[in-house]
């Protein structure tokens, strides 16, 4: 039994948990490679043209995996509690895959706390589908969760160190599946790093802390969990950086609202808003990044 894991969407939030869970159960996994041209093409060809670019990338990864494994892992997370929803794209993803690739076998689980479907329950369900009993799955899950959490904490500490160090720094405001994807955000962050600019991410923050920070300004109004966390990150790290870079894929609903809101509300930091789709020319974006770097550096000279 070999499980294919698409390197897209939810993968970027939970990969440490998933991979360790399967490793603890001694199940072979194959993760699709970093998004490349062929994967993008596969995704674009198999999606509705108006779908968001991140979702096209996901479809591309599933397409890549379809003949390389026995089942493809396509979980869906609808919410993690009241006022903690995920994007409709993410909770529609299982039905989308099933209708796009009717021949692909999906290993899936449903996380929906409002309907009493919790995360541990979902992993037990997955374990059952793989022929493991309840206690075995639960143990694998708990161990994987510990590992994943310690990796997350180390990342947060590392980022805090980076933010307190000297040098020019920028903060990336983007969903994890955009900021780390090779076809979306990775080229952008790499470009800044190559130009001696340190890159921090708004979503690398303790979840509880982020929620409290977001609630300070918006109450519990922002029920999109991923975005709420990023906004908490912006509130926390904003004063330690020289500029903010917003990366989103076309067309993203929550990003459309909140990137505009950030641009309108943050007056003391330069902001670069990059929207990416499958047609973008990299040269155009590079020019914009170069001039953004000039802006940050000039501001520093003036101060």
């Amino acid at each position, binding site marked *: 039994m070999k499980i294919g894991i698409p390197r897209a969407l939810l993968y970027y939030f939970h990969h440490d948990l998933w991979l360790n869970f399967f490793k603890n159960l001694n199940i072979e996994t194959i993760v699709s490679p970093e998004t490349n041209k062929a994967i993008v093409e596969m995704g674009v060809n198999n*999606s*509705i043209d*108006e*779908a*968001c670019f991140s979702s096209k990338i996901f479809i591309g990864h599933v397409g890549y995996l379809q003949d390389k494994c026995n089942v493809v892992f396509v979980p*869906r997370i*609808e*919410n993690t509690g*009241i*006022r903690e929803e995920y*994007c*409709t*794209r993410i*909770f*529609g993803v*299982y*039905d*989308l895959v*099933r*209708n*796009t690739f*009717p021949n692909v076998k999906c290993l899936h689980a*449903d996380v929906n706390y*409002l*309907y*009493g479907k919790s995360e541990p329950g979902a992993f037990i369900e997955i374990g059952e589908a793989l022929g493991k009993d309840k206690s075995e799955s639960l143990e694998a899950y708990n161990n994987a969760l510990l590992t994943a959490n310690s990796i997350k904490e180390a990342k947060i500490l590392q980022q805090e160190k980076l933010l307190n160090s000297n040098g020019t720094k920028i903060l990336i405001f983007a969903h994890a599946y955009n900021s780390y994807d090779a076809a979306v955000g990775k080229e952008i962050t790499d470009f800044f790093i190559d130009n001696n600019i340190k890159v921090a991410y708004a979503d690398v923050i303790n979840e509880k802390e982020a929620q409290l920070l977001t609630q300070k300004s*918006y109450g519990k*109004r*922002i*029920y*999109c969990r991923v975005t709420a966390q990023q906004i908490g990150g912006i509130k926390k790290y904003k004063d330690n950086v020289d500029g903010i870079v917003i990366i*989103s894929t*076309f*067309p*993203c*609903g*929550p*990003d*459309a*609202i*909140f*990137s*505009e*809101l950030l641009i*309108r*509300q943050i007056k003391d930091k330069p902001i670069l808003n990059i*929207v990416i789709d499958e047609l973008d020319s990299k040269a155009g974006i590079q020019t914009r990044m170069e001039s953004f770097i000039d802006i940050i550096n000039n501001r520093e000279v003036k101060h």
Partner: protein
Amino acid sequence: MEITENMKTTEKIACVPTAGDYGIITDMLIQRCLGYKTMPCPPMTKRTLELGARYSPDMICTPFKISLGNFIEAAENGANVIIMLGIVCRLGFFDILQKQILDDLGYDCEMLILFDYLPTVSGEFPTINNMYECLRAINPDLTKEKFYSIFEIMAKVTFDKDYLADFMRRNIAFEVHKGEYEKHYNDYLQEAGNVQSVIEAEEIFAKYKEKIESVAINKPEKPIQIGIIGEIYVVIEPFANCNIEKWLAKRKVEIIRPSDWSSTGVAIWSLPELIKNSGGYVNYNIGSTANDVIAQAHQMMKGGIDGIIHVKPASCSPEITGMSILQNMSRDYNIPIMYLTFDTGTSETGVHTRLEAFYDMVTMKRERD
């Protein structure tokens, strides 16, 4: 900005974005539950769209742009409270950004959101109580009894109105004297907006039901049936969908359009039912009203409809997920679906050309079969 008479006084004048002919219902809610005066949004024109598009982010879906245009025009005319309805999808965030945009433009308005987030917990209807809590937070004098009696009237009028509108849509293409339906229907709306009790609403409904059902029609036994499905705002707001219903009504077509506040309002809270009615094409919630749309399409196809038109605003992600599923359904049942996306730049002529081609195709298919 000119300061009008209304703004000098502290009287609250509220404006709710236009959504089809549901103005009478929202007015009832605002006037009776909150005690604000209401002001209808100025009729939508090209200017509304232009204003909305100019000040909105470009990726946002069309309802945001249109309602922002509505609000700017209403604020120009002296509205000082802007009311937005939330409920599903990202509608619950609209007001945060719209308030910021209106502030930046210099309009001094209060912005309220009603029902920003009503979760569907275990398929239960959310919660008329939630609605009450939400309204009481704005108007502490609202008692539970009063809210329930108002809600009852609103629900009654919504269901009645939707019944009449649905009956009219199915038959309007075949009326003998043009304009009769519309006249009765508009009279009904006029009278229904002022009802004070459920009994009174029932009387008015009975009166107009009789009038509307007895309009002379010349309907063939098996007329061409075209279904309209899609994102609810675009479905119910004729200005947002380039008036496709009116266009179809001129072509001897029976229009089946199940989406309206009463049926969708009930349907989206009974998700398991919707999934059961989708013939195995969907297993889970795919967001907003898209599950309802899939279930509607499946019922229509099983009933042997001639063609379906799917409408949605640009960048509506639940409906885009739904489209992948509808495409499969359309292929399996061999029934055509035309997908129309509406944005602020959509030209009415372009849409009508596509409708014409679709209508021709559907009639030819009928003759051939």
